[in-house]
């Protein structure tokens, strides 16, 4: 287990939280903990309670969906410095896909229940988190739309 100060430094050094003041970093560090997943471990499952999100520090995570007769289909993979999970922000807070560690994964998780409470009372913190999640969601949406086009498919 790392100390609160170490966690503060970890978060401070991460690009996702760049620009946050010490007060807000302290608040986040209070909700954060280190996580480790071995290759093959599921980080969360579709439909489960989305009570946290992850900042990946090392390794590769596959976001998957189970398709009848096809097994698990990987929709995208996430890597070092990517954030994993935004369902904690959106009621009713259920995961929409599975997340599986493809390799050894080290991550920081932030407790969504704890964060939601803090965002409720500290709207400034709420704004800063939203301002960081919306571009991530936008980027994922853009990538998903391009993927949907199947650009490299043989011409019809």
């Amino acid at each position, binding site marked *: 287990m790392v100390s609160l100060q170490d966690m503060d430094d970890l978060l401070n050094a991460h690009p996702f939280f760049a620009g946050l003041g010490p007060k807000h970093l302290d608040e986040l560090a209070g909700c954060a903990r280190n996580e480790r997943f071995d290759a093959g471990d599921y980080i969360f499952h579709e439909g489960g309670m989305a009570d946290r999100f992850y900042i990946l520090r090392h390794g590769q995570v596959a976001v998957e969906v189970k398709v009848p007769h096809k097994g698990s*289909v990987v*929709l*995208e993979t996430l890597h070092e410095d990517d954030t994993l999970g935004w369902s904690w922000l959106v009621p009713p807070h259920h995961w929409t896909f599975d997340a599986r560690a493809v*390799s050894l994964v080290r991550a920081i998780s932030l407790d969504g229940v704890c964060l939601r409470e803090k965002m409720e009372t500290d709207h400034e913190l709420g704004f800063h988190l939203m301002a960081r999640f919306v571009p991530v969601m936008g980027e994922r949406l853009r990538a998903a739309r*391009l*993927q949907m086009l199947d650009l*490299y498919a*043989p011409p019809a």
Partner: protein
Amino acid sequence: MDTAPGADLAARLTQTAAAARVPASMTALDPMRPRPFRIERWQRDLSDTFTIDLAPLEGSPLTFRPGQFNMLYIHGAGEVPISISGDPERPERLIHTTRAVGQVTNAMKALRVGDVIGVRGPFGTPWPVEAADGHDVVIVAGGIGLAPLRPLIHAVLARRGRLGNVVLLYGARTPEDILYRKQVSAWRGRFDMTVHVTVDRATGRWSGPVGMVTKLIARGGFDARDTAAYVCGPEIMMRHVAQALLDRGVAAERLFLSMERNMKCAIGFCGHCQWGPDFVCKDGPVFRYDRVATRLAQSEV
């Protein structure tokens, strides 16, 4: 002089205003006439993609620069523009990688070693390799777009000493659609080059990245403000990759892409490949991004 005034007059009548502008050199070469080349090697790369190595029946090999293309004539089928995919320092092996998508390319797919085809070229603007000197290099390929970039990768590795980091980002449809798989693996094994490959759809035992090639750009490995970028793939992919590179700080003047249009002549005579003020055949196919950014965003130009 007085003996044959008629002949003299006929001779003088050939001294037309236009004749003064048509030197003999202008009529000596016929740029529409192919040279016969023999297929020395035929190799299937993917289910619909294959590579042929060509050698001229007579005469010297055809020298080219990375990014240039040839018009390949298949007897009885027609002629298509195909980019050259070989090493520019080994012109004796004239290599083309082709995807069978139409009548001519399907006829080409049915050819075998020993068959003879017609070649005209090389045509078009090359990838400006020297623009990368002193900078990092990012090469972004999508699908079959790796084929026109392979000569560039050869050229980049040939002048490796003058360059900073070298990064190849390659997006394929599925793991089975990864072109030049052995060579990509070999490049990935080099210590002086970073290679990331992603697929749109994971199949089989693929455990690598899944997602658009644009996402690989975020993984870095190069100093965006000091980078020359070369992009080839479907037009939509190139637009989004260019935007992602610009967003990271790559200069539009050091960003290059390669366009594809219908071509019947490759020398600016047939008019088919026009794209705004440019003929893709002679002003392209390689364009500097800042010159074409506006057009790239406009539909049906």
